């Protein structure tokens, strides 16, 4: 699961900005969202991403997995991932 090929994006000041020229939409993703996208781009699965987040933040892994799933469903809803 990765960002769609036609999308332009850049990490700027800790946040990822995604440009979808097909819909003329510009999206911004916060720091944790950006980390999730970074790891998705590197083919990490949800569990591996959750492990990484738990290492960096003081959070429960089950909650993190749920948050990742919610986040990914938002990305899917906005047609940003394939």
């Amino acid at each position, binding site marked *: 699961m990765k960002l769609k090929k*036609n*999308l*332009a*994006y*850049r*990490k*700027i*000041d800790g*946040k990822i*900005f995604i*440009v979808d*020229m*097909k819909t003329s939409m*510009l*999206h*911004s993703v916060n720091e944790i969202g950006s980390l999730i996208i970074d790891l998705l781009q590197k083919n990490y699965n949800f569990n591996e991403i959750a492990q990484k987040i738990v290492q960096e933040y003081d959070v429960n892994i089950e909650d993190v997995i749920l948050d990742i799933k919610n986040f990914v469903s938002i990305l899917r809803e906005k047609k940003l991932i394939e």
Partner: protein
Amino acid sequence: MKVSEEIFNITFQKRIPLYTTIEITYKCNLNCIHCYLPEYYKTKKTMTTEKIKNVIKQIKNLGGLYIVFTGGEPLIREDIFDLIKYAKGLNFVVLLFTNGTLIDEKVAQKLKFSGVDKVEISFYGREIVHNSITLKNDSYKKVVCAIRYLKKEGINTAIKCPIMEINYDEYVYLQEFAKNNCLETKFDFVLVPKNDGDSTPQKYMISQKKIKDFLQKIKFNHKKSLDLISNLICSAGRNIVGITADGKVYPCLQFSYKIGDLNNQTFKQIWFSKKFEQLNKQNIDNYVECKSCDLVSVCNRCPGVAYVETKNFYMCSFTAKRLAKVVQEI
């Protein structure tokens, strides 16, 4: 805050080259009467494919997101598709500014394959008017065909047009054409002098009366701003940068104040150079005339044009003042 404002503010404050315009050639197959490139530029040596790619990579590493390829006529270069593909591979938004006359069915397909995000075509009006501006008889027909081919490939296309005395009445036709073909339109009134200071292009600018007339017809609504800093300090050199075909770096292509040369410096060295730093140290106290001008809240001043007009980018630009007067009256 809108995401577009957010990215603009971050890159403006942190000085990140968000938006880069690269002139990849000075050569052009047309001879437009208002062009800002002097004829003798066409023989200048231009950057190689590898050099341009290297610069794009550096810009990506500094946080750049938008790349515009322009010219001259960028489609004259055979490596244009390779350059677009390269920039897309680095996840840039890639725009191409062209006169459209070199786009046939095959070129449109190649553009689609390269991944270009948007093509903006200069289009000046009906056949007789368009051709009298480009000084080439078949240019109108070629532009119309180009738009058809681009649309067929599903490429996001816009038409843009400087409104001059010679084509003042054409905007109605262009708006209609754009509507029928689902195209975005961009109109402008400002013509800049040639890069060598020759003001010939500016003699084609429309009168203040016509500008007012036009703005009223399109129901132009200028948001007055009371923020002096945002009124006066332009993003050129802060989150916008211009690179010429021979490798010179400017705050913007309209701002002919040379900052560096990619033939003997890296882009990163230039971006963090003292010259750029000094340019960005400007504050409102530098703008002695503008600070006390009652048009400042409606003035869309360009430091590049001010620099060409006065050799001082803090001075009043008569071109901007002329427009501001009209905007204030509306």
